[in-house]
């Protein structure tokens, strides 16, 4: 008997004792989509049980699959998460109208998932028409989260507010949208009470405050409120007294002339927020008004100060009140001294992000340096996520930092001057990142910067065995560097490269690799059309897309985006995108 057949029949015999319904019930408890993917590969029975029981689907690259295929495989989806454009589109490296439009997905979902409840989009193009369509077609719709999306305006939001009776979440983050007016907020009907999450911090126009106040009053389940900076302090006070159960708060402007009475009222309102664990906003906050917060900071685990240019002493005073802080985002105006205060006051810190206040400023006499980072590493041993923009760094400092904190899972270091060496020894920063990958065995995400030769990539390929995402800019010496990474990092999923001397040999060294990855981005490298054509020919299950712009000469592949797909070449590609 064919061994395979015997295995199958034995297995189906076992499965027969295990009804599909039970299997589905068990599998429905699986949340992680990685687990679900694994489960679906076990056998046909399990594949079917899994697909029937899945209610949430995550699609990391909207062009890797078509909505029809998704709908065919998963009949019972309630929540969809989609990511569209390559990440470098956040930095203007992807032209407008590139694609990733949600409408084609919504059209299919309207038919196949009429009970769709949640839509979470990142870097997708969403038009007002799509938002109106969404509001109209999905009666059960509850949660909309748009991060770094574009194409819509507040008119679309008005449609959502007006029609989605059961909306629990409206989360608009960092999008390039047209803010026509704040009237959208008044479109929530007066009998609408279900909102739990409202984030409009990134919109710039005024909203009807009375409408907002009434909305907050009647939505007793509101847990997350992030207002935009048109909301003043006294308005904030009125909101806070109506929403004492908030767990996440994003304030508006923190700059206002308050009299003594208003000040104490505000302080009292903050004091009433006993459940606050996340705080953001605080635009233009100064030492004068920050103290109103202190009563609310006892349980704070995430403090996002990157909208306020605090100095070191101001930050220190705040941090004293936040002993439980796990995540902190600051501007580099706090300086190395501010980071020393972090080290002193935040022993539980796991994530630190330091953003530059003046990234394009030509005066380089401020910001943070290696000593701030070092200080934090001494004081915050649990650090596992760091995003650090600085103007100088040394190999020795990084080596010490990772010795102090070997548990890094995300290490994103941006030395802002491209190709800058160790400023003390003037050597490349190879040893710094070598130390990172050697010491931090759990590293999943790495972004490198500074002057780097192929040696950095040799280290990465040799040691970064858990690395999933790598971002490279202005680094490397030759094709060999990229080859090391492609051949060495078994779990690599996303590789994004710009302005590096990697050419066709490097590109083609990944022939065996790309189908196990989500995507590859290479821009301003040395890849040519010939190389891309070879890749496309050898690997038909990849989409090899080249973006042409007026700068690139013939033969040059200026921007290359390669990704695995079962959907075939894009049907909606704009004229400047060539699929080879």
């Amino acid at each position, binding site marked *: 008997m064919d061994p395979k057949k015997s295995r199958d029949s034995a297995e189906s015999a076992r499965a027969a004792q295990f009804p599909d319904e039970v299997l589905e019930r068990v599998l429905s408890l699986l949340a992680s989509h990685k687990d679900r993917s694994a489960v679906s590969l076990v056998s046909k029975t399990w594949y079917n049980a899994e697909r029937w029981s899945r209610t949430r689907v995550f699609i990391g690259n909207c062009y890797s699959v078509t909505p029809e295929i998704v709908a065919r495989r998963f009949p019972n989806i309630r929540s969809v998460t989609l990511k569209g454009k390559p990440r*470098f589109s956040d*930095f*203007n*490296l992807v032209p407008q109208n590139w694609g990733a439009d949600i409408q084609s997905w919504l059209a299919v979902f309207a038919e196949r998932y009429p009970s769709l409840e949640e839509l979470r989009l990142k870097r997708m193009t969403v038009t007002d028409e799509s938002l109106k369509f969404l509001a109209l077609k999905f009666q059960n719709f509850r949660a909309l989260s748009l991060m770094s999306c574009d194409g819509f305006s507040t008119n679309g939001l008005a449609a959502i507010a007006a029609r989605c009776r059961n909306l629990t979440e409206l989360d608009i983050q*960092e999008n390039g949208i*047209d*803010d026509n007016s704040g009237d959208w907020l008044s479109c929530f009907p007066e009998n609408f009470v279900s909102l739990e999450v409202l984030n409009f911090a*990134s919109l*710039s126009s005024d909203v009807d405050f009375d409408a907002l106040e009434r909305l907050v009053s009647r939505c007793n389940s509101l847990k997350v409120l992030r207002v*935009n900076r048109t909301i003043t302090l*006294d308005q904030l006070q009125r909101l806070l007294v109506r929403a004492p159960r908030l767990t996440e708060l994003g304030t508006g402007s923190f*700059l206002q*002339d308050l*009299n*003594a009475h208003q000040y104490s009222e505000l302080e009292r309102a903050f004091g009433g927020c006993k459940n606050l664990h996340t705080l953001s906003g605080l*635009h*233009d906050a100064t030492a004068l008004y920050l103290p109103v917060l202190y009563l609310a900071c006892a349980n704070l685990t995430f403090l*996002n100060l*990157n*909208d306020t*240019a605090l100095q070191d002493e101001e930050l220190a005073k705040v941090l004293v009140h936040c002993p439980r802080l796990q995540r902190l*985002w600051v501007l580099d*105006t706090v300086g190395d001294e501010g980071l020393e205060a972090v080290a002193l006051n935040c022993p539980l810190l796991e994530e630190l992000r330091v*953003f530059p*206040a*003046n*990234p*394009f400023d*030509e005066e*380089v006499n401020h910001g943070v340096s290696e000593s701030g980072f070092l200080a934090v590493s001494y004081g915050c041993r649990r650090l596992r996520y760091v995003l650090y*923009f600085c103007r100088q760094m040394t190999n020795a400092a990084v080596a010490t930092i990772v010795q102090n904190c070997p548990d890094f899972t995300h290490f994103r270091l*941006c030395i*802002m001057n*491209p*190709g800058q*060496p160790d400023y003390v020894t*003037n*050597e*490349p920063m190879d040893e710094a990142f070598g130390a990172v990958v050697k010491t931090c065995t759990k590293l999943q995400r790495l*972004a490198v910067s500074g*002057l*780097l*030769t192929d040696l950095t990539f040799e280290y990465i390929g040799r040691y970064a065995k858990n690395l999933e995402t790598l971002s490279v*800019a*202005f680094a490397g010496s*030759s*094709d060999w560097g990229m080859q090391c990474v492609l051949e060495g990092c078994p779990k690599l999923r996303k590789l994004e490269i710009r*302005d*590096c*001397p990697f*050419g066709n*040999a490097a590109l083609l060294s990944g022939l065996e690799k790309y189908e196990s990855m989500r995507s590859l981005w290479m*821009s*301003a*490298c*040395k890849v040519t059309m010939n190389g891309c054509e070879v890749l496309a020919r050898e690997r038909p299950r990849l989409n090899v897309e080249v973006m042409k712009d007026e*700068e690139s*000469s013939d033969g*040059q592949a*200026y921007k290359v985006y390669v990704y695995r797909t079962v959907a075939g070449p894009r049907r909606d590609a704009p004229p400047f995108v060539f699929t080879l």
Partner: protein
Amino acid sequence: MQGLVVWFNTWKFQGKTVPFCPLPTGKTQNTRRMEGVSRNGEAPQLLDFIAKEREWLMKRLQEQSHGPPPPPEDKALELRLGPPGDEDRSNIDFTKNCDLQKDESPLSLGYFNGRNQAQAQNFAPYLQFSPSISQTQLPVLAKDSSSDTVDLQNNNDTEKKKALPPASAAANTAVPDSSQKRTAPAPVVGWPPLRTFRKNLASSDDHGKPAPKTHQNAVSSKIVSERSGKGLFVKMNMDGVPIGRKVDLNVYDSYQKLSAAVDELFRGLLAAQRDSSGRGIKSMPDEEKSITGLLDGRGEYTLVYEDHEGDRMLVGDVPWHMFVSTVKRLRVLKSSEISVLGAGGQKQDKMPSDSAMQ
């Protein structure tokens, strides 16, 4: 048409002084120039200079390198000019490059001009282009986009890239910590990697800043000037209000914000002045009239400032950072009185009617 960037510092070279070459401008708007900058037109001359004296330069740079001798594996990384990988350096087409047209714009290397990546990348664009870091800079010659040089580059992948960075490093170690201020290179597209708000910038546009305000995860335009780092307080007086205020200009980064702050600060005081019966400290927000139109002349009041020369100027004409560096004092004047003063700067005069009219 892509050109070359030739970069050097001033140095005495066989008795002749060679001036700076400007930072690569290429397609980017780099209006800042370093001191002693020479115009692009001089580039061909300087190239000639270099071509003849190349050996001198290499020798000098090597002499100046006080750093430890490069480890053996870096032999391939020795100081080179022109496309590395060429063992015989004298074959480098310096002469070709010396025939630069005068009107060729200098090619900015690599990242300095995001648009020119395709051409610049042939050369290690990883040098630190800061004049202060090294007194003697390595002249970097990026190849033109002509196809033969591109091929030349492509043939010498492995060696070439390693050449320049350590060379510059070697040059850099030679130099003591310079007192010159380091200037950052010209802005590159999409660098540093920070998210931008293309459309949300409109409401708080800063006239002067060329690059979009960027910010990770937040509304962008609140980047605060770091001028003094500690606070730039200027006095502000308003017509009809006996008590002035002090404002910290470092807290604002645009005229709109300053205008809003003026409104906040003086609204109550103005209302208190108007209400002669005096309602005490607690002012009713609803009854205070907002002070608007400070910048465009449409409001009842207009914002003016006095600069370091004592001239009174309308607020809003110059880029914000320039304003902050020259402002000494702010005044909120009744717009009706402004028209009495002449346009442009005038010596401050207590009696506006006395000032000459244009």
